[in-house]
């Protein structure tokens, strides 16, 4: 559950709550984006039938899998960037 390193011990109660909330919000936002992205990629906009067909279902499953993989790659890369940026004091310190 420790996404992007959030959730490490925090002194005050308000800060602990804010961190827990941020972590949950991050996961929830990620899900919302997943829904948005994968339905656009996998569900054609003509809606011929109410049910998911086989092709759409498989596409959705693979889309989730690839979406997680991209998240892992990007967050690993960002951690590297963040370490570099910490010295130069860029916008996303």
């Amino acid at each position: 559950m420790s996404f992007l390193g959030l959730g490490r011990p925090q002194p005050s109660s308000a800060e602990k709550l804010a961190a827990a909330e941020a972590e949950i919000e991050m996961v929830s936002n990620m899900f919302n984006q997943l829904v948005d992205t994968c339905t656009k990629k996998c569900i054609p906009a003509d809606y011929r039938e109410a049910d998911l067909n086989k092709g759409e279902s498989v596409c959705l499953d693979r889309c989730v899998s690839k979406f997680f993989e991209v998240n892992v790659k990007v967050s690993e890369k960002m951690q590297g960037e963040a370490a570099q940026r910490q010295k130069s004091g860029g916008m996303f310190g």
Partner: protein
Amino acid sequence: MDSLTPAEQRELQGRMERKQMKDFMNMYSNLVQRCFNDCVNDFTSKSLLGKEEGCVMKCVDKFLKSSERLGERFQEQNAQMAQQGGMMR
């Protein structure tokens, strides 16, 4: 998260419920917007055409089924990632 006191957990719970309500409303309005966008393109009439209404109903159905399936896969992947020690290791 296990370092929260019971009072903090209750407060977090309350915030999460408000967030869930907000998420539901966002989901609902995204759904309306998407299905409206994809299905309603005729503005020569003031009322929905039969085929537009049919399209909207199928769109809603399909979107709910997709979201449900995506939710299941998401939770599986999340659980798997937690076992591996988080995204950051």
